[in-house]
């Protein structure tokens, strides 16, 4: 009984702006307005997952920022390579997975780190291991999706890539431009200005303007915040506008807690003052955190699924069909859908194609199995 009363109260609140008479309420009450709540409860049970990639040269503060964002210490016993070891280093992909729970909501967070990026003397195509990794995740999801057993598909696709731009330069460097152009159609890129505590407010503004200009100039498609709905309230719209004008975010991270203004905060202690990571007038860390976790996490996942993954999938299928057409030396591309009025010849053809497809499906299943075995 209590649950039903609760539901009714919820519905009342949802329908609040419209004033209804009691009788009208009874007549028009269907009850599906509780759907968002049901979805909410189911998702809480299921838990969320989010894959975040961090890319940038070493020493940009990536690990510190990740620790600050998620209030964890993922990189406790890290050993820094010395210059000799680094000369022969190639770009690696390292995944850290951590399960975070807050107020009953579970988040499986995966951080994909890219040590070695941009560190060598010759950095030609240093982004290739990264694009290969992202494509691999898409491919695996594609196979899982096309497979027969779709119950427990694991989504390892990269939902967001934080790219750390050094604050030392005058804007984007060639390696920044090339990296973002190689990845902007595969993943949501959010450019950040790293170690922003070495810049004065004026310098930050100039650098941000310059980076925005260059992003436009080079046609780089970074992640765009979705437009506000017109019926949102003014405060929300104002916040949204501020957020958009603030990109790229100038961030500072810290692994240490210091005493500032009588409180213990995450910050960095210098002889000339204390930088507070969560102070909005010091840096944009709070904006980034709110955007990434509190308001736009779901949108990032949606864009990854609806745009980047679909692009990949369409491309993949196109390649597959054109390959099939090539193999059979057909003049026109093969339709996968069956023809409406088959005659004998075309029936034979369809049978042949069906068998071919079945064989391909078997191959895919085999590969899927192999991959699952490998994972175990």
């Amino acid at each position, binding site marked *: 009984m209590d649950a039903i009363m609760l539901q009714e109260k919820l519905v009342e609140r949802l329908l609040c702006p419209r004033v209804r008479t009691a009788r009208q309420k009874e007549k028009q009450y269907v009850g599906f307005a509780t759907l968002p709540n049901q979805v909410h409860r189911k998702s809480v049970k299921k838990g969320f997952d989010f894959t975040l990639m961090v890319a940038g040269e070493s020493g940009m503060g990536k690990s510190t920022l990740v620790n600050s964002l998620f209030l964890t210490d993922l990189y406790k016993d890290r050993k820094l390579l010395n210059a000799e070891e680094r*000369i022969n280093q190639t770009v690696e992909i390292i995944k850290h997975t951590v399960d975070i729970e807050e107020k009953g909501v579970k988040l499986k967070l995966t951080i994909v780190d890219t040590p070695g990026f941009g560190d060598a*003397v*010759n950095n030609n195509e240093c982004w290739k291991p990264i694009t290969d990794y992202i494509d691999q995740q898409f491919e695996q999801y594609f196979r899982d999706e096309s497979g027969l057993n779709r119950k427990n598909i694991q989504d390892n696709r990269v939902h967001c890539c934080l790219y750390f731009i*050094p604050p*030392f330069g005058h804007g984007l460097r060639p390696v920044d431009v090339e990296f973002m152009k190689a990845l902007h159609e595969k993943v949501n890129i959010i450019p950040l200005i790293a170690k922003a505590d070495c810049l004065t407010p004026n310098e930050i503004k100039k650098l941000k303007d310059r980076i925005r200009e260059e992003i436009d100039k080079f046609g780089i498609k970074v992640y765009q915040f979705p437009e506000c709905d017109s019926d949102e309230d003014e405060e929300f719209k104002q916040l949204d506008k501020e957020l958009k004008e603030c990109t790229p975010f100038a961030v500072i991270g810290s692994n240490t807690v210091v005493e500032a203004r009588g409180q213990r905060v995450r910050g*960095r202690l210098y*002889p*000339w003052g204390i930088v507070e990571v969560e102070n909005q007038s010091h840096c944009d860390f709070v904006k980034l955190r709110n955007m990434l976790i509190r308001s736009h996490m779901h949108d990032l996942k949606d864009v990854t699924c609806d745009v980047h993954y679909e692009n990949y999938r369409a491309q993949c299928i196109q390649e597959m069909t054109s390959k099939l057409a090539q193999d059979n030396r057909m003049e026109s591309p093969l339709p996968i859908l069956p023809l409406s009025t088959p005659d004998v010849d075309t029936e034979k053809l369809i049978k042949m194609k069906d068998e071919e497809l079945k064989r391909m499906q078997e191959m895919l299943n085999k590969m899927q199995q192999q991959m699952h075995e490998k994972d175990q």
Partner: protein
Amino acid sequence: QRTCLQMSLIRGTDLFGYVGIEAILDQMKRKTMKAGFEFNIMVVGQSGLGKSTLVNTLFKSKVSRRSNYEEKISKTVKLHSVSHVIEEKGVKMKLTVIDTPGFGDQINNENCWEPIVKYINEQYEKYLREELCVNRKRRIPDSRVHCCIYFLPATGHRLRPIDVEFMKRLGKIVSIVPVIAKADTLTIEERQEFKERIRHDLVANGIHVYPQKEYDEDPEDHILNNRIRENIPFAVVGTDKEHQVNGNKVLGRKTKWGIIEVENVEHCEFACLRDLLIRSHLQDLKDVTHNIHYETYRVRRLTESNMDFGELGLPTWPLENGTRDKCESESHL
């Protein structure tokens, strides 16, 4: 008949009166003040590390042209040298700043140090030719690079491969002074750890930076230089803006959390770098360049002079008086 040399040391206190030998110091001082000094400093580092700002702050004047933000990153390393004559208390100095835009900015930075090595060797070559002329100029114009400041980005980790490659090659031909640029992003602990790791990396790779241990002339120098060696690379911050702090005008960078005073030794080591480069070791830098780096180059070139110059890719060295004079000049070695 045997002639024997008798050497004895006569101290000033034994003299009957005041001879005035020490006045020679004044004479020297006056002569050099009239002639003026030349100092050539090269700055190397990726764009945006504050090279021009640091040079301007060091010499308290706008000697280095701040790069215009509209300029594109150049595809090759181009050396750009600007000379100014600055004067202080009657002493004139012709300061030449050699900038190296484009270093380390590309995606593929292999051999980006080659134009720099070539430039330095060309200056030695120029001086060598002047020196070997029959009719030499009274004062040979000195365009040799006396000091190369290498800017390391303040990553807080270690030396990068490009840093190692550059300093390995250039440490042999010029005096390198590495500095940590834009050091206001490191806390004091991070700075100490970073410096230790850098010093360790330098030793591990056999890189000799200024002041080199081998060239300490006496124990006093050794102690002084050891103190410097324990502190390199200096963590510097540069600026040309002034702010009010406690009623004084200081050079500094103003941020939301405080003002970083450039000349305050508790904030950064700019003052140490300035003292090293200008107030205490300027002449030493020139001497090391002349007596050691240049002599190394000279010996190498003269012993190679038996080889075909075409092989080395260097322009042929015309001997003014034929081969006999070559033997004469060699006997001078």
